C-alpha cells in the first residue's frame, strides 16, 4: 500500500519530455497494430489494441516492446497468409515505419528517467536521426520494389540456402557491431 501511494505521488513528478516520448511509443505501437491487423475486426479489438499499446509506453525498458513488435508482425503474416490480403505499398511502409518508431522511441524512453529535465536538443537530434533512417529505408524500399518482381518470389532450394546464409551473416554482423569494444 505504501509503495502504491509512493508511485501515485511520483506520478506528479513526470515531466514533459519523457511523457512526449512515451506518447510516441504508444501512438507507434497502436498504429502498427492497427495497420497490420486484418480488416473487418470488431471494434472491441480496438480497445484491446489500445491496452496492448499502452504496455510498452508504461514499461519501455521491458520485454513488452518486443512482444508488441512480434504481435504486429504475426498479425501482418496472418492477414497476408491466412486472409490472403493484398496490402498496399502505403500500408506496408506505414507498418514498417511504425515498427521502427516503436523500437526507437522505446529505446529512448527506456533511458530517460520519467522525472528528468530534458534538453530540447536531445529530442530534436533523436527526431532527425529517426527521419534519416526512415528516409534511407524508404529509398531501399523503392530499390527493392523496382528490382524484385513482386511480393512473392519462388526460389530454388539453393537460393534459399544462400539467402538464409546471407541473413545469418547479417544478423551476426549486427550482433558483433554491438559487442565489439
Amino acid at each position, binding site marked *: 500500500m505504501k509503495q502504491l501511494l509512493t508511485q501515485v505521488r511520483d506520478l506528479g513528478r513526470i*515531466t514533459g*519530455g519523457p511523457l512526449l516520448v512515451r506518447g510516441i511509443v504508444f501512438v507507434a505501437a497502436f498504429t502498427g497494430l492497427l495497420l497490420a491487423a486484418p480488416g473487418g475486426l470488431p471494434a472491441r479489438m480496438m480497445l484491446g489494441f489500445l491496452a496492448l499499446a499502452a504496455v510498452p509506453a508504461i514499461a519501455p*525498458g521491458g520485454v513488452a*516492446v*518486443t512482444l508488441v*513488435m*512480434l504481435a504486429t*508482425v504475426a498479425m*501482418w503474416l496472418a492477414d497476408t497468409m491466412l486472409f490472403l490480403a493484398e*496490402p498496399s505499398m502505403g500500408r*506496408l511502409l506505414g*507498418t*514498417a*515505419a511504425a*515498427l*521502427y518508431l516503436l*523500437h*526507437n522511441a*522505446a*529505446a*529512448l524512453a*527506456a*533511458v*530517460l*528517467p520519467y*522525472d*528528468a*529535465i*530534458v*534538453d530540447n*536538443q*536531445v529530442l530534436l*537530434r*533523436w527526431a532527425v*536521426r529517426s527521419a534519416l*533512417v526512415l528516409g*534511407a*529505408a524508404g529509398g*531501399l524500399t523503392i530499390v*527493392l*520494389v523496382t528490382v*524484385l518482381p*513482386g*511480393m*512473392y*518470389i*519462388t*526460389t530454388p532450394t539453393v537460393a534459399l540456402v544462400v*539467402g*538464409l546464409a546471407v*541473413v545469418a551473416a*547479417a*544478423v551476426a*554482423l*549486427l550482433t558483433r*557491431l*554491438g*559487442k*565489439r*569494444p
Partner: protein
Amino acid sequence: MSQGASPEGDLEPVASTDTGDNWAPTRALSRAVLVAGLLLVAAVLLGRTDLVILAAPLALSVAFALAKRPRTLPGLRLSTVESFPVEGGDLGATVEVENRDVTGYDLTVVHLQHSPWLRLEGGAVDPGAGRRGRGGNRPYVTLVPRGVATAVELAGPAVRWGRHWLGPASAHAVAADGLLVSRAVVTGALGVKVYPLTDPFKADEAMPRAAGLVGQHRSRRPGEGGELAGVRQFGPGDRLRRVDWRVSLRTERLHVAATLSDRDAEVVVLLDLLADAGRSGGIGGASSVLDRSVRAAAAIAEHYLHRGDRVSVLEYGAQARRLRPASGRRQYLTVLEWLLDAHPSPTAQERGGAQLAAGISAAALVVVLTPLLDARSASMLAGLARSGRFVVAVDTLPSDLTSPPVNTWSDVSYRLWKAERENTMGQLGEHGVPVVAWAGAGSLDAVLRDVSRLAAAPKAVLR
C-alpha cells in the same frame, strides 16, 4: 562568486579507460537484432519481399548507429560557486560533463544528490545561450556533442545552517540511438558550510562587571575614557591634552574635562544541548530549539564582539566543547564555525553548575541559551548563580510548540508540564537568574539592567 568553496571544491574528471567494459549494449539492441533477424529469416523461407521491407529500417538503424561507437567514458566535474553562504543565501553548483570521444553522445543523464536543506534547481545550459531551466532534485538530460563539455548549472537557497553535503554527482551517457549505455561516472561529495543567520540583536544596557580598564563599556568610575563626566579644576597627574581651554580662559584657572573610564567585558555564551524539541523548517519555516539556540548565540556573539568584548562559547552536553575567549572579527568567524558542529547531545552524567563555573571568569556575563527541558539545566543555572557568576538564561523553547495528541490526557499533561516549567523559571528568578524568552533585538536589555543592579549590591556567595 566564481571561486570554488574550498581547495577540494573542484574535482578532477574521473579517469576513463579504453576498455570495452565502459559501454554495454541495451535491451533495444537485442530487440532490434531479434526482430530484424526473424523478419529476414521468414522473408527468405517464405519468399516474401514485404518482410524484408518491414525489417529494413530496424537493420539499417542498427548498422547506422553502430558504425561509430564510443569508447571512453564521459568526464565529470562538480564544483560550487559560493564561498561562505549564510542561511537563506543563494548557493550555486555546476556539474560539467565532457565528451572526449570520437563520436557524440545521444544524451547524458546527470544526477546530483545533495542535502535536502539545499534547494537547488537548475537545468542544462548551452555554452553560448546561458539558458537555465527549472527542476528540484531531478535528473538532468543533456546533449553532449563530440569534443564539447556541457555544464548543468544549479542554484538555489541554502535554507538551514549547518554542514551540508553536495554530491556525489553521477552521470551516464547513451549513444548509438539508445543501443549502448556507458558505465556510470561518479564524483566525490563536497562539503558546504552554511552559517547561521544572526537574528537582529542589540543590548544597550551596561555590562554588570567589566574585566579591566580598557574596552567599549562606560563604567561609573572616573578615568581615561571617551564618555564626558564633567569639568573640574586641574590637579596633579592630569594630562595636558585634557585641559578645557575655553573654561580655563573664562575662569582664569586651569580646568580639565573629566571622563568616565572605558572597560571591556567577557561574555560566555553557554548552549544547553541536552535536549532538542520542535521541527526545523529552515530559514522561512518553524524553528527547533537548536535552531533558536544557534541563531541566538550567533547574534549575541556578533553583538558583543562588535563592541570589542571578549566572547567565549561553551557547550552543555555530552561533547562539552569549549571555545576560548577572544575578541575581534576572527573570533566571530570562529564562533560561527564552532556553532556549525552544535548538535543535541544528551548524556547521562553532566557537570553541575559549580563545575562549569570553575572554568568561567568571575567577572564574566554568562548567557545560557536553554530550553529548560531537562531538570539538570535548571540545576546548572542555579549552581552557576550560587557560584557568583552573573547569569542570564535565555529561553529558547519555541512559543508555538505544541504537544502531539496521543490520548485524551495529552493536553492536560502538556499544560501541567508547562506550569511546572514556569514554576521552575520563577524559582530560578528567585535565585537571581532572570529567564527571558528569546525575541531578537532588545531581548536582554531588561534582564541586564536587573543583573547590573544585583551586581552592584553586596551578595553572599558560596565558596
